[in-house]
């Protein structure tokens, strides 16, 4: 079971990032979430969602989704901006088990762009 993404249903609201960050820190920020938007190509409206797990990154790109083993990625990759804390050094998704809740990113997404499978 893992969090998966329907990237073209995503509208880029950042609520999943806030919800995930909150479950780790009990505070709101965009730097600690295990899920993040890739939104560095704003003029092209290119927007994807990346979820980090213990083993891999799930890359929900508009042109297709895939899971990539962590070892196959360059260090510091999957960023989306130089000052964004790179996804590789963030906590891996724990399916929100540490707070005893259902996956909060899925629960908060207003457009059902996230699901568990």
């Amino acid at each position, binding site marked *: 079971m893992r969090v998966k993404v329907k990237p*073209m249903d995503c*509208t*880029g*609201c*950042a*609520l999943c990032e*806030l*919800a995930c960050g*909150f479950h780790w*820190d*009990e*505070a*709101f*920020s*965009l*730097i600690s979430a295990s899920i993040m938007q890739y*939104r*560095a*190509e*704003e*003029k*092209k*409206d*290119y*927007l994807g969602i990346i979820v980090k797990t213990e083993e891999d990154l799930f890359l929900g790109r*508009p*042109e297709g989704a895939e899971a990539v083993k962590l070892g196959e990625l360059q260090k510091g990759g999957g960023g*989306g*901006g*130089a*000052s*964004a*804390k790179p996804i590789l050094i963030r906590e891996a998704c724990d399916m929100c088990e540490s707070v005893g809740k259902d996956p909060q990113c899925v*629960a*908060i997404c*207003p*457009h059902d762009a996230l699901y568990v499978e």
Partner: protein
Amino acid sequence: MYYGDTLLVNLDTGTTEQFSFDEVGVFGPGLAAGIGLYEKYGDADPLVIGSGLLTGTTAPASCLGFVVGKSPLTGEVAVSPLGLYAGAEVKLSGFAMIVIRGTSDKPVYLWLHDGVADIQDASALWGRDNWETTDAIRQEMGEGLIQVISAGPACEEGSRLASFSIDYWGSGDTAGLGAAMGARKLKAVALRGLGMLDPEDPEAYYEATMEMLAGSPAEPGFGRLSKGLGAGDVDGWLKPMVHRYRSCFACPAACNTFVKYNEPASVLAPDGVDEPGVMVTSAAAALWLMGGGWEAEPACRAMEAMARAGIDQVRGARELAEKPLKDPAGVAAAVSALTGSAAAGWPSSDRVGSGLFGPWVPPLGSPDEWMEAHRLGYLLGICPTYLLTSGIDRGALLGLCGPASGVELDTGRIAEMLP
């Protein structure tokens, strides 16, 4: 729920100072504090940038920030909105509010990041359009997620149509505060924040916002808005070019409509053309052009041209709509020929805003309801358009202030803070 100090920027001397931010206790949160700061430094006719109490959190549509300053159009104090990601980035920038006074002797931009304020030379950016400026600042700083509030060429020239832009997409600055930036030789304010907002009672705040979100409407596009106005089907008009609908920060709705016309809307991979289209952020501009008989594609190209130039898209579109476009190749010439003869406003309404607030938000509800949505929205940082189109429970929203930061607000206090 603010963090960081008040930043005082003096463009005369090229220096900055920081003071502890205690205006919430004195004046109230959000815009009340912003206006309090404006008045405190009123002799210097400053520009004040800030955000609302709940901006940047899981409260629905908590995207809103603002710029307060004297409108060059009216000579009166006016407020322009910071939507998209700009308001949230102000909140997370490490500065609670930013007061900018003076005039630089050369073009500069302000670079605010994680509680650090740098005044950067912008000589090479002067004369460049908002798209070039956003690209150049992001490239210079090596960071694609910087939010750029910029003064395009129309703002530098002090045009009556001047309007600052947020990144590439224009803004709801109907007061000409972009020209107030240009007059100070302030080309842009660039923001990037990795800050953290700590609610006073985190779990109560989070659970209450989750409950509110669960009942919040989330239809993409301008449909709810145009239906509420009894206006035409602007979504259907744009449809063949729509690539995706986009939200402002934390907004369940997604009015902003990204259209592609330089490549098929169906292209998904990022290896296509660099500039495939535009994000339509102004329903009013789209409605004016549609009502004026424009085809959707040249209309979107005109919105792009206005967003690049720093022209208020609403007044620009209204003026363009008076002259149906005969030759689709004439869009750039038509935009260059704009004179600023049209007033701001929405089709089929003679409401033009009220007091501090321009007509960025559609004229839905009674004038009192419209005004109340602005007061609440600008104090808390919630988009007034979302308040008016979502039917969200305003009592529940006010109830968030306690768990957010121990501030108790009710409608009486709100009216005192923002008469």
